[in-house]
């Protein structure tokens, strides 16, 4: 365990060193992701500001969801996606051999291979939106609510990661997959709004199949203090199922890896 923690820190340090080499890129990319965050707020503002609650959500409450979405997006783009894009590249070139030869768990090595440190800006922006929203509402979340929603953040990251690793596992069968991660990211965009604005089958899809509701709506509701405990447990259970499935699919898939030259 200690060994893996050291390994994680080492990989993180290497990514930061790599990022610091391109300082200008660092700044422009960071600035751009801020622009995108602000931009995402515009439709919400025009649609919900000074209007009665839509599907049970007022403008401020929906902003809490956007805050969570922004944080998760930062984690996704900063910690999950870059490594997995790298895996696809490795598979395509056959250089995954070098990773597999190292004396550590393959899934661990592969998923911590690269971080994009400037995405931390999104994390701060998300927290900023949450703080600002609660000031707008003139209330503060209770400590218990903060604890539950932080737990649900961990749940959300687990689900997100498991979905991505399962998707990447598909690259062992079909090699050309680099736009799959774009496809998944654009699906994730639906997590911007509270899930209750979707109707019927679409809502079921985003709750159970691609549990975007679980990732952004549930933590937001927990923070607002209106999530029933049963649903929180459901989320934790779901995350476990997703994590195990992701692990299973990945280990199965890696057995099919035949390197590029052979």
């Amino acid at each position, binding site marked *: 365990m200690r060994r893996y923690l050291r390994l994680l820190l080492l990989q993180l340090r290497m990514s930061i060193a790599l990022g610091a080499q391109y300082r200008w890129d660092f700044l422009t*990319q960071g600035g751009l992701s801020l622009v*995108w965050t602000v*931009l995402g707020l515009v439709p919400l503002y025009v*649609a919900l500001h000074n209007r009665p609650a839509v*599907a049970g959500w007022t403008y401020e409450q929906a902003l809490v969801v956007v805050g969570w979405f922004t944080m998760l997006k930062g984690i996704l783009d900063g910690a999950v996606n870059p490594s997995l894009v790298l895996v696809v590249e490795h598979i395509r070139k056959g250089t995954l051999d070098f990773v597999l030869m190292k004396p550590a768990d393959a899934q661990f090595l592969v998923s911590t291979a690269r971080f994009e440190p400037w995405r931390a800006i999104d994390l701060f922006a998300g927290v900023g939106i949450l703080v600002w929203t609660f000031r707008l509402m003139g209330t503060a979340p209770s400590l218990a609510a903060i604890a539950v929603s932080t737990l649900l953040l961990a749940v959300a990251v687990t689900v997100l990661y498991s979905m991505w690793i399962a998707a990447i596992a598909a690259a062992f069968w079909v090699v050309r997959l680099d*736009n*799959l991660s*774009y496809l998944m990211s654009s699906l994730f*965009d*639906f997590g911007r709004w509270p899930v209750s604005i979707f109707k019927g089958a679409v809502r079921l899809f985003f709750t159970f199949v691609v549990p975007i509701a679980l990732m952004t709506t549930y933590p937001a509701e927990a923070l607002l203090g209106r999530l029933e405990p049963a649903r929180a447990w459901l989320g934790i259970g779901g995350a476990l199922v997703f994590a195990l499935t992701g692990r299973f699919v990945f280990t199965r898939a890696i057995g099919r890896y035949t390197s590029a030259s052979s």
Partner: protein
Amino acid sequence: MRILSAYPTLLRIGFANAVAYRTEMLVWMLTMTMPFVSLALWSAVAESVPVGRFDQKSFVAYFLATIVVRQLCGAWVVWELIQEIKSGTLTSRLLKPIHPLVVYSADNIAAIPLRALFAAPLALIGITSGGTALPHEPHRVVALFLSLFGAWFITFFVMVIIGCLSFFMESSASIFDIWIACFMILSGYLVPLELFPSWVRGVAEVLPFRYTLGFPVEILIGMSSDAAIARGLVIQLAYGCGSAAMALALWRSGVRRFGAFGG
């Protein structure tokens, strides 16, 4: 003259390329979920009371139309240009006895039939949704096609302008990101321009973004008056000429300083 005789062949090559990478194109099209994300929000808002003159049906029509128009008027020349200038592969294009921009334009135009085919189901849903008043008077149909062509023309040449900036600087891709960010808001892609406060709408009508998407969409679903269409076409023409002239000038001065990396 030589361009005219070569153009049909260039189009055929471009079309064959588009067909060869059809799955990739389909996946790229599937990533355009943002209008659906917007649609979900707006139709929830319009469920009980209409917003302005938009009810749920007209939101469905509007956002499906934005997807269709974006498919028809899309281009990707900026990525190709940036990549080829940086890697130096532009040299092989410069050696050919035909202007590279002509080849790029043929590539981009030739993909349109396939994109239209992929977008057709959405268009059908949009038409049957009952929220549109498709133009049928001849002058409106002509205006629609003119505006669609104008939107493609401006998009293409703006992409060439930003792509040509790679001759002079490193971060032209970030500049294009900024362009896209402004486009999302000010073209009517995420929010119909009508729903903005009037001063934002005024700004949007002066800037080029609306003329690459929102303007044809409004004609397509029958939202604008004849006078508005005429004024829009004139502004679109001005932006088209301006962007083309600027693109050609930038291209010329860029190629002059282009020193093919690595040879």
